């Protein structure tokens, strides 16, 4: 049974904007990247999973429970880090996270103990007793993560967790997310429009575009090697392409880089010999990998 199962999920906002358009997907445990451009429907999907929004049509279940009818039970096992600010400035991190633990159904003692633990996990120490209003963005983001973790959820929904962070804070937050997912074994969905972040943290990827599922597959399959050899020479790239074609290879020029199809290992030798023959300076020769970006540029091409 998949952890999340959505069937023909559609959300239309009043005013005619369609955020989700017949989305059908199954999510298995893991660290899942939910990518898409701004407005692709990432936040809408997360809010529907939480029961914060009702879908216009379609159905979705989390842990085999229907979101529409068993929302309060589901939410005892789900942690949520919203994209926007969501902290009261007048409370301390300790008081607020303890309170949120109790809102998730923990008894008072358990909530206090777990608050101390998760605040330590996210790296908040003496400052946890000070009012949140005085915190930096990075510290606030950690408090948001702590309140999502305090009740030991089975599913963690992180909406743009690095929003507003500087590069160092971004790195620390991503490490934290990755460790939370791998060491704690909590299935984590990270929504982001930054593919690089998803690539660093996640092992599975859900790509949505225009409210539809573009692709769902392990990250590795997006970044695996392609059947293309990229060759970079200092100059004379055009000459090289012509000569390679003469030798029976399929070669083309992409900017200053020569791309050669790789049906087998043979082109490696041909390229080496041809470069030597033409007396060119070979800078680089490597098998190309897919990049996550290709996914969306491909989608854009399809649309066009």
């Amino acid at each position, binding site marked *: 049974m998949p952890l999340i199962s959505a069937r023909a999920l559609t959300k239309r906002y009043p005013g005619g904007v369609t955020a989700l358009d017949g989305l059908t997907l199954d999510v298995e445990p893991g660290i899942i990247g939910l990518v898409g451009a701004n407005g692709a429907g990432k936040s809408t999907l997360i809010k529907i999973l*939480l*029961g*914060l929004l009702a879908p216009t049509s379609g159905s979705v279940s989390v842990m085999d429970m229907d979101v529409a009818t068993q*929302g*309060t*039970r589901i*939410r*005892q*096992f*789900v942690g*949520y880090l*919203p994209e*926007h*600010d*969501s*902290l*009261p*400035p*007048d*409370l301390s991190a300790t*008081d607020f996270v303890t*309170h*949120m633990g*109790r*809102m*998730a*159904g*923990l*008894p008072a003692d*358990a909530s206090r103990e*777990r608050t101390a*633990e998760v605040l*330590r*996990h*996210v*790296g908040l120490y003496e400052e946890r007793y000070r*009012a949140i209003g005085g915190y930096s963005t*990075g*510290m606030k983001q950690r408090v948001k993560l702590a*309140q999502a973790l305090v*009740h*030991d959820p089975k599913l963690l929904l992180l909406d743009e967790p690095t929003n507003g962070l500087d590069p160092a804070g971004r790195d*620390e937050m991503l*490490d*934290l997310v*990755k*460790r939370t997912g*791998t*060491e*704690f074994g909590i299935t984590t969905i990270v929504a982001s429009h930054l593919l690089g972040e998803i690539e660093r943290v996640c092992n599975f990827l859900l790509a949505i575009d225009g409210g539809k599922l573009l692709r769902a597959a392990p990250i590795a399959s997006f970044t695996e090697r392609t059947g293309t050899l990229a060759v970079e020479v200092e100059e004379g790239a055009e000459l090289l392409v012509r000569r390679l074609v003469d030798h029976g290879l399929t070669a083309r020029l992409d900017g200053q880089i020569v791309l050669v199809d790789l049906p087998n290992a043979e082109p490696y030798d041909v390229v080496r010999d041809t470069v030597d023959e033409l007396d060119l300076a070979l800078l680089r020769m490597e098998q190309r990998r897919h990049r996550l970006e290709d996914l969306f540029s491909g989608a854009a091409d399809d649309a066009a």
Partner: protein
Amino acid sequence: MQPEPSAATATARSGAIYDLGYQGYDGPRLGRRAAIATLFWSSWRAAFGLGRSGRAKIVPWGLTIIALLPAGIAVGIVALVGNAIQPFSYDNYLSQIQVALTLFVAAQAPELVGGDQRNRVLSLYFSHAILRLDYAAAKLAALTAALLVLTVAPQLVLFAGKVLSATDVLAALGDEVPKLIQIAVSSLVYSLTLAIIGLAIAAFTPRRAYATGAIIAFFLVTAIVSAMLSNIGSPPIAWAPLLDPVGVADAVNQWLFTGIAMPTNREGIVDNPAWWYLAALAAVWVVGIAVIVVRYRRIQA
């Protein structure tokens, strides 16, 4: 799994992440009712600024003291000069401290619901084990319970004063104890009415100053319009007192103690049957709660 080297070496930097392992939680999860109770108590505490800075306590505690002061003074007078003078009785006490009660609602209703909208904590609450209307109900109950402190406590002071200053304490106790039920019911009626009105207004804006201003304006305008209409014309307009919800609660309060439904300070002006006031009070509650329900069903989280 072993901690990542980057995390382990990061301990040297300031603000770094330490790794002390992680324990899961296998204990009980108490569910929706416990979550509602938690929200109720935390909101009740917030109404008095408990667990907040000292500044957050000034207004609620100041108004609580003001609400208690007349009872304290009355008991003091009774202690000094005996039972000859009774400056306050149960039936008119709440109308005497009405200003303190309405100011408490105006100041603290926005505190209970405005901040959650302003800081967008609402989306965290709604993503926990409660329903939207559970949130509204917990807030309404908390504000009512906070007002009960201001309404019941001074009447208990009066009660203690009356009993202890009597020559025959036991006989006085026998006389006064039945009134405790009346005190409880009338305080609940008064507190709930003010809380419903305050919350129905405060729920509509995250801006604290707007909410406070709107609540004060509502109480002032209804009181003034009602007073003007009941003073013009001869005979005066009989239904005019019904336009003032606080006056209506006061009339019901009088009726609970004396059997005569008459807003304080309107004696002799109008004489309406008790059910008019009871119906008007029910209307205030139904409309106010409906407004709160509609607001929290639709509010964006």
